[in-house]
């Protein structure tokens, strides 16, 4: 699976690592919905580190689209919340 961390780049993550990654993803959303900023920051930091550690960077001359795209590593809690309320990180 190709996973992108927005503003950083793409990583190839093995199928075996996907369940753990999906779990972190869901935990981050839950923290966001609970309005728990600390838990969101912790979870999201772990998620980004997981992708960096377990994934292989995709060579720059590959043109494959990602299977999953995560927000930028410096995303704020407010931005993440806005993302879900439909305002989005990417305007226009």
């Amino acid at each position: 699976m190709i996973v992108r961390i927005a503003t950083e780049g793409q990583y190839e993550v093995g199928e075996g690592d996907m369940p753990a990654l999906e779990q972190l993803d869901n935990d981050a959303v839950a923290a966001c919905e609970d309005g728990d900023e600390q838990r969101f920051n912790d979870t999201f930091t772990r998620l980004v580190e997981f992708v960096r550690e377990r994934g292989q960077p995709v060579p720059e001359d590959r043109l494959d689209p990602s299977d999953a795209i995560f927000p930028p590593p410096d995303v704020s809690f407010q931005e993440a919340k806005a993302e879900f309320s439909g305002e989005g990180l990417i305007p226009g």
Partner: protein
Amino acid sequence: MPGLSGRMSTVIKAKISKLLDRAEDPSETLEYSYQKQIELLQNVKKGIADVVTSKKRLQLQEQKLRDQVVKLDTQARQALAAGNEDLARTALERKNVAQTELQSLDSQIGQLEQQQEQMTASEQKLRAKIEQFRSRKEVIKAQYSAAEAQVRISEAATGVGEEMADVGLAMQRALDKTENMKARADAVQELEAAGTFEDFTQLGAGEDDIDRQLRQLSSSSEVESELAKMKAELGTGAPRSAGELGAGGAAAAPAGEPAEAEQGGPSPGQAP
């Protein structure tokens, strides 16, 4: 995939189709997409230049503030040596303001440095993808029938489009942050324009409006402790009010410090 990534993917995909979904004819799509990529690359270069300009501006201000800190410190010592404690305090208050500004400039210059690196990396990545897209574009044109070409084009365009959307996002975030830092640079400039860091001895010892504002800005306990330290270094002895000093010295030496008592109180002549 639900969750953060699902939401983010949906948003990015919408962005990509907006970026690329203009042309009907496959070869037109290729050319249009390629044009867009080149445009974006140029924008990224411009964005990097913006960040570099902001960084240079902050570095210039940083240097000026460093000079001011040294100057104000010297002036505070001179004022104290001359027995003018009020003036010394004012100088230290201004030094305190300059130092606070200096600290925040320091960290902002560091952040701009990071942004410059990140954008430069983005530019290289985008350049590599564009190069790849360009060669694939020629292959697609030469080798595939119209129907096949359509599929290959949409694959290649989606891949490069995602990179474009992502680089666009990185650039936008970097520039937003740079914008905030410009505000900081402007604030420092306003302080300068208001004469905060000018040669304050020109003002005399009297308190003006700027002094009152500065007093609110600067941490007075820090100023007082620095003043006490400076006095100790200068050997002017026990803390006392400037009024007493100004009155000419000898009369009002408070009890408490035996060394002082032996010397019969301070006089302007004692200052080193």
